[in-house]
């Protein structure tokens, strides 16, 4: 495979016809949440697109992000886009190992300097000089800094790379940090989620392939096209929220009727992601559709944000002891003030003098 061929040529080699390409573009436009009328534009752009070199670095992570992406059955749309890039380094997926693998990374970094895409999953431990995670004797921190220098853009895949993720959860023993905490002089795109929706990962890559630039980002560095709406806004159960129809437990009538899961701790209203529209497993379902509330996995610090089953309108922590203490303290203070008032009154009474007309005439 030549790296310089266009995507259309690449697909043609794989026996894909124009109708197939049209279908591919319609699905890609759908993937990028573009209106169907944009499919033609996508087709025109993709026919010209060059295949970019991609280096994928995995740090403090569980490989769930890679699993999510590669578990889709071939040849799905994700697969084709994933194959349309030239993946030059991914230490879980590549055949080479040891020094050979690291050489492939170094070679790609040299050859495509300033042009390659850097994909990162996993957070980066920065405590104690970054000793808590190393690859080939090199700390994650150093490897990221080195690889980011020649990258056209950095894509943080998963909540760990985007916001620190589970390793960042209190008390964060390794000093886990997000990519954007470390790399500040390169464009960084966050694709959070635990894992992110595979079609969203490939959707961002498709956007880069189609338009040659990164998509527009929100305040938390996420592509607006996928993270522009909350789960709640796009949820098919939203009308039940508006009508005040809620499930009160996981096995009551409301739950069976498919009513809103707000009272069961659904974090949909504060979670920005595309699950409700893109869905999972080739569009089969998403957590709320299968009867469980959203846990908010694409938001920073979601694991430290109270229980998964606590409704958004309730406090995180128990307030019982604090409340009892406050009432006791209030009673004591009140008693002290009353005592003080009473003393003042007694004293005032004691010092009270009767004035006579004579006194006034003085």
């Amino acid at each position: 495979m030549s790296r310089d061929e266009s995507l259309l040529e690449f697909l043609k080699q794989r026996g894909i016809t124009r109708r197939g390409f049209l279908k591919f573009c319609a699905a890609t436009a759908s993937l990028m949440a573009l209106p169907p009328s944009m499919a033609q534009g996508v087709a025109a752009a993709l026919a010209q697109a060059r295949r970019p070199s991609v280096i994928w670095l995995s740090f403090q992570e569980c490989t769930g992000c890679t699993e999510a992406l590669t578990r889709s059955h071939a040849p799905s749309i994700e697969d084709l886009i994933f194959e349309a890039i030239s993946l030059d380094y991914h230490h879980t997926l590549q055949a080479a190992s040891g020094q050979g693998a690291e050489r492939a990374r170094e070679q790609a970094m040299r050859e495509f300097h300033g042009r390659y895409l850097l994909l990162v999953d996993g957070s980066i431990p920065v405590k104690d000089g970054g000793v808590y995670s190393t690859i080939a004797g090199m700390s994650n921190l150093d490897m990221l800094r080195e690889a980011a220098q020649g990258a056209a853009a950095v894509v943080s895949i998963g909540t760990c790379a985007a916001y620190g993720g589970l390793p960042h959860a209190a008390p964060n023993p390794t000093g886990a940090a997000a990519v954007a905490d470390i790399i500040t002089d390169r464009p960084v795109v966050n694709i959070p989620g635990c894992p992110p929706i595979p079609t969203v990962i490939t959707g961002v890559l498709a956007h880069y392939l189609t338009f040659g630039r990164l998509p527009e980002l929100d305040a938390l560095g996420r592509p607006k096209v996928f993270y522009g709406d909350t789960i709640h806004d796009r949820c098919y159960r939203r009308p039940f929220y508006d009508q005040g129809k809620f499930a009160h437990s996981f096995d009551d009538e409301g739950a069976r009727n498919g009513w809103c899961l707000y009272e069961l701790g659904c974090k949909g209203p504060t979670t920005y992601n595309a699950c409700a529209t893109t869905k999972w497993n080739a569009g089969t379902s998403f957590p709320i559709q299968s009867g469980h509330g959203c846990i908010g996995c694409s938001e920073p610090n979601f694991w430290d944000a109270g229980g998964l089953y606590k409704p958004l309108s309730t406090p995180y922590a128990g307030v019982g002891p604090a409340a009892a203490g406050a009432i006791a303290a209030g009673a004591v203070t009140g008693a002290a003030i009353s005592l003080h008032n009473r003393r003042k009154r007694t004293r005032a009474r004691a010092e009270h003098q009767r004035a006579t007309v004579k006194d006034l005439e003085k």
Partner: protein
Amino acid sequence: MWFDPNDLLAFARGTGFQLALIVFLLGVTLRFVEVYALGRPRDLSTPRPRVGSGWRTLFRRSVPDAMTFRRSGVTFTVGYVFHIGLFATLFLFRPHILLFQDVTGLWWPGLPSPLIDAIAVATLIALAITALSRLLHPVKRFLSGFGDWLALAATALPVLTGYLAYHHLALPYTLMLALHILSVEFLLVVLPFTKLMHMFTLFISRWLNGETFARRGVAS
């Protein structure tokens, strides 16, 4: 890194709520003990037999007489609307009941959300008219001090932010929800130390007045 509204929401639902609740409970208890300990002067009159006068007064004083109503009908009407509205939105909105259930373990049925929504709008309009009348009426304006404006703002903000949050208006929901909870926490903190304390003392003092007057033979 960047400002994350989730952090603000986490504070509002965590430490912020705890602190506000502590100040609120401490303040309310303190005020109650203080008021109770003031005592009442000994009543030297011969007690007239009249049972339940306090309760009757509680009701009768809540209904305006024709004369007063003619003189300040607006004050009465909007006053009633926003007081009932505040009660309904606070205690009969489902997500709020969840909060009370979480904190106290008590549960009661709520009203449908669209109805609460309409009540919230009426409450906001009534509060706006209250503010305007306080601003435009020369006597009211003369009598208004910092405490009055503080109480009005502390009452109106939770309704306004709650309405905006429910409808996903003005700001992203996460941020608006955080602001809504923070505004309620502000209300909790200032409540015991402003005239808003009448929430607790009003009916007690009204009952006491009724009883005292009945004892003196001038019961309503």
